[in-house]
């Protein structure tokens, strides 16, 4: 015996909003920036990465109904992605601070260039990488929101995180805070942007052709009330314009050390970061439940 098919309007999740979108965005950005800066040994980049991850923790806490109880989040890493994420963020921030501290504070028991510093850097890097992964898995673990419940999300979030790291390096380089050879990164950023665009297209095509819930979520993004933000914010501002700018820079400016390409790279990076946040935000807002009940 079964119940006649339940036909009610789609139910959209309202519990998670912009604070969580910001937390996920800043976590991914911070993780990506920290990891890339560590590989390039850019201290200011690492510090900014740590600050970004700290802000991610702040927004995660702000989203709680009972903020003074935030410490309880560490209790269930075996099954809860929120718990795992909190541990990864804390690990990345704590070991990241310990790793960069000798460059700013003298008299610490561990010094720059020692084995202990190397180990702390390694642990911080592993945690930063796990932060990048957790942001996607936090959403994709939601079994009953089909538009989130896909491996595409962790992959896309990880690409966006590395892209965010490169973009942040472009911006702080354009501001003159660090000195780095951006010529290596411009083609990588362009390639990652194109990969994101293609993946996003495939993702939406799959969502449109699959189960209830996913299709409605994708419709909200492409045709519903979220479409202006998604199409103009994520696709046009966050992907298409930066791709055009990056390709123009690569093909028109053989020497990227001049002011014009560096400024253009900074603008392209800023647009990508805006799109990256809007992607998280719109995706959260498009969370349609299955079953409809």
């Amino acid at each position, binding site marked *: *015996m*079964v*119940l*006649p*098919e*339940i*036909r*009610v309007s789609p*139910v959209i*999740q309202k*519990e*998670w909003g912009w604070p969580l979108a910001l937390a996920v965005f800043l976590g991914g950005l911070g993780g990506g920036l920290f990891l890339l800066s560590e590989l390039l040994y850019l201290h200011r980049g690492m510090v900014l990465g740590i600050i970004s991850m700290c802000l991610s923790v702040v927004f995660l806490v702000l*989203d*709680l*109904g*009972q*903020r003074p*109880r*935030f410490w*309880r*989040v*560490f*209790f*269930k890493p075996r*099954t*809860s*992605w*929120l*718990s795992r994420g*909190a541990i990864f963020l804390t690990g990345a921030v704590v070991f990241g601070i310990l790793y960069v501290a000798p460059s700013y504070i003298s008299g610490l028991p561990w010094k720059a260039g020692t084995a202990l510093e190397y180990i702390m850097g390694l642990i911080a890097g592993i945690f930063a990488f796990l932060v990048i992964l957790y942001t996607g898995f936090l959403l994709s*673990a*939601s*079994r*009953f*929101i089909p538009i989130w419940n896909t491996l595409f999300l962790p992959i896309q979030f990880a690409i966006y995180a590395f892209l965010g790291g490169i973009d942040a390096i472009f911006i702080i380089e354009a501001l003159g805070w660090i000195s780095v050879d951006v010529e290596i990164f411009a083609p990588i950023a362009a390639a990652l942007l194109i990969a994101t665009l293609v993946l996003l297209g495939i993702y939406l095509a799959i969502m449109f052709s699959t189960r209830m819930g996913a299709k409605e979520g994708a419709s909200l993004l492409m045709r519903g009330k979220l479409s202006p933000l998604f199409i103009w914010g994520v696709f046009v501002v966050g992907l298409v314009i930066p791709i055009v700018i990056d390709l123009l820079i690569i093909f028109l400016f053989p020497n990227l050390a001049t002011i014009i390409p560096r400024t253009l790279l900074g603008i392209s990076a800023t647009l990508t970061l805006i799109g990256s946040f809007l992607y998280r935000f719109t995706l959260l807002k498009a*969370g349609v*439940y*299955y*079953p409809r*009940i």
Partner: protein
Amino acid sequence: MRYGMVIDLKRCIGCYGCQIICKSENATPPGILWSRLLFYESGSYPNVRKIHLPLLCMHCKDPACVDTCPTGATAKRQDGIVTIDNTKCMGCKSCVIACPYRARSFHGEESEYFPGQGLTPYERVGYRKHPTGLVEKCDFCLSRIQEGLEPACVTGCMAKARYFGDLDDPDSEVSKLIRDYCGFQIYPELGTDPSVYYIL
């Protein structure tokens, strides 16, 4: 021991009595329904039926909310009842997202039933059980069960459409009903094994 409920949809008349008596028993704040009634139409013209489906927390055997809760506030008791510990919940809402039956509500801020007139004495007493910033849901009227009573929605159903008992006991009324009338769970394919069954 696994407490469960059987709802006879042939007997249910969609009177909202379960919803009201649940509110009366548990003093749930405005906008929060631990027990609710879903109305929808089934079939296509000219063979259309109006279905009313009473819903509450399914107290699943494999609840998705327990796994996703990062604090351990949501737990399944030995008797199968899924509870939320108010002192442990931090209001992260991940259990609300995880529940496929939409049985959980986040109580964001205190509101009154008569806006601008303040809380009634009943609300003042009742809301002690509903601190803000937490997630809440049906607990099968745990306090009543501990007193040897049945959940309020079972005793209060005037059509006598609800039955409560031990699903693990083959001689219990609920087990017999499920066996004799081909009781079914809603969306069993979701894999959470609900403890609320329906008969048609």
